[in-house]
């Protein structure tokens, strides 16, 4: 038995005879059975998505009559489904190209606004001394537990009828129409994202070294200057992490869009249109499969390329607490 402790990493996988006790334990946990089970789980987890993906390229009559697995014995590939669901003539085709643009138009400002405001607020709550600071932070933290369902009805009224107190109109109705309704959606997404964004970014910002901040203050830097030149560059990874998080959340959202965007192809995002297709044309599998794949394409690309940051954003909120 060796008494030295070589570096942890790699001991379990590089040799058949692990030299450390830790390695041996790990070896035992990673028996062949465990490996096989984990591969099986990974395959089971991927098959539904894979089946959808394969189906989306099969001709309509094939999708509707045979299972996607027959593709391997009788491979027939077509892009017609995509052509149809993106640019199709008929009203039932999906016309997803237009909704795809809506999703983009909704998502970009809905990510930028909460990020900017949350970063500013998180900085103030962490490093600017003013009375009641802790109370404001606790208040914002507590708002996380308000389900957004609690805010929907009155917020919609706020947009559609304005604010009137005792007969005095404090704010007129916004009376947004068609494309202008995007503004409502941005507004709603921004409000709903703030508590969590501030909480996560506050975790990062308050962990910056105190000496750094004090040194900057001694040098005569004002808060805005410290914020722009010191804090922002240091927390860019955290901002990126939350940005991805918010991007996925907004892109994948259905509820907020249903209520604030309206159902038309002027403003509704992909998710709304897809849910509609799934409801009314539940048997048009050629459209549903290709449509669903179009809607998950962008988040998948974002997810696969920026996975590391996404994980960091998740862990900031959960493991550190």
């Amino acid at each position, binding site marked *: 038995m060796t008494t030295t402790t070589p570096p942890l990493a790699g001991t379990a996988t590089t040799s058949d005879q692990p030299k450390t006790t830790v390695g041996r334990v790990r070896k035992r946990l990673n028996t062949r059975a465990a490996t096989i089970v984990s591969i099986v789980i990974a395959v089971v987890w991927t098959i539904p998505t894979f089946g959808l993906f394969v189906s989306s390229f099969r001709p309509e009559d094939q999708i509707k009559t045979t299972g996607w697995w027959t593709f391997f014995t009788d491979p027939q590939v077509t892009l017609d489904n995509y052509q149809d669901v993106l640019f199709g003539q008929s009203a039932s085709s999906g016309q997803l190209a237009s909704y795809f643009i809506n999703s983009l138009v909704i998502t970009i400002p809905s990510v930028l606004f909460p990020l*900017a405001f949350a970063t500013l607020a998180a900085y103030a709550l962490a490093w600017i001394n003013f009375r009641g600071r802790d109370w404001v932070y606790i208040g914002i933290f507590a708002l996380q537990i*308000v389900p957004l369902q609690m805010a929907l009805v009155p917020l919609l009224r706020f947009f559609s009828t304005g604010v009137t107190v005792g007969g005095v109109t404090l704010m007129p109705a916004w009376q947004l129409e068609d494309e202008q309704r995007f503004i409502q959606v941005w507004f709603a997404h921004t409000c709903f994202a703030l508590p969590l964004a501030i909480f996560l970014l506050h975790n990062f910002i308050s962990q910056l070294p105190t000496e750094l901040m004090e040194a900057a203050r001694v040098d005569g830097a004002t808060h805005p200057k410290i914020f722009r030149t010191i804090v922002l560059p240091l927390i860019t990874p955290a901002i990126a992490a939350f940005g991805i998080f918010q991007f996925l959340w907004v892109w994948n959202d259905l509820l907020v869009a249903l209520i604030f965007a309206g159902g038309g192809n002027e403003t509704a995002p992909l998710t709304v249109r897809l849910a509609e297709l799934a409801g009314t044309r539940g048997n048009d599998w050629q459209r549903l499969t290709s449509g669903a794949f179009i809607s998950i394409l962008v988040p998948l690309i974002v997810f696969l390329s920026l996975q590391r940051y996404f994980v960091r954003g998740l862990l900031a909120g959960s493991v550190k607490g």
Partner: protein
Amino acid sequence: MNFEFADEAPKLMILLYGLVAFVVVVGGLLFLLDAVPTWFARRRDARLIAASASGGTVTIGRLKPREGVLGLFFLLPTVLLLLIGLVVPAVRTLVLSFMDSDGTNWVGLANYDWMFSQDEIVKVLTNTLLWVILVPLIATSIGLIYAVMVDKARFESIAKSLIFMPMAISFVGAGIIWKFVYAYRSEEQDQIGLLNQIVVFFGGEPRQWLLNAPLNTLLLIVVMVWIQAGFAMVVLSAAIKAIPADIVEAARLDGVNAWQMFWRVTLPSIRPALIVVVVTISIATLKVFDIVRTMTNGNYETGVVANEMYNQAFRAGETGQGSALAVILFVLVVPIVIYQIRNLRKQREV
């Protein structure tokens, strides 16, 4: 082709306005933050010079710009948005839940009374309970088992990505993916849904999976588990990797086997992360709406609170009843969150 780029131009214009607004608001705020303290500083300097020129002394209130004012500027947009978008509406929803469908007359507890007296709604409540018990339990277990099994395996990162991937897929997308898995064709035809194909392969009869309660609710729960297990796995995997090596080694020297290692070392060490995962998934599950809406639209006794709330408030026009359901959702979330906060505080003290 039904797609004219010109039709899309107004949308892109709105996007442009949005981006301009972003630059103006955020840029303007940063500018103000820079300019206001400088202005105060300059005025102070001017007064100092004037005072020294006249030979008198001047009392200066503060030498530094007021921190409170500055903090207010940093916080202003956030506080305003939260008040308008969350605080006031939440209070208003609470009030509306005691009013009739127009929100004009007080009806006392009638909406809550309705909730617990209608069989359908009671069904919705029990379904929600089923979701919130099963999803966190199963998703966390699978995530935990998987995190332990693939830890330090050769294919770890790919395997983890595969499980984690559903996190990136919208609930609507996931709903369609699984509707396809559950798809039904009558016995004479070839099956196109994987599940029925498996059933047929083993000699069974194909079934309409999503039509029969309570099985359909369980099958919807599968979708949520499919999405959330990856989240549990990623967080728990990070927690497992953070267990100090000397603890593992000490346990090993004491001669524990893999089973004991898991129950006596791994599990207690990752307990905080475990709680966070369960709580987070529970809250997400309580609010689940998209899956139910996409797959069954709450029919065939599959409704849940969040979904029913939408139906009542935005489709049936029963604002009072919808609001009451939203309040119930809030009431259900609160104890879970309080439990988590208490746990976090306990850990901090230890």
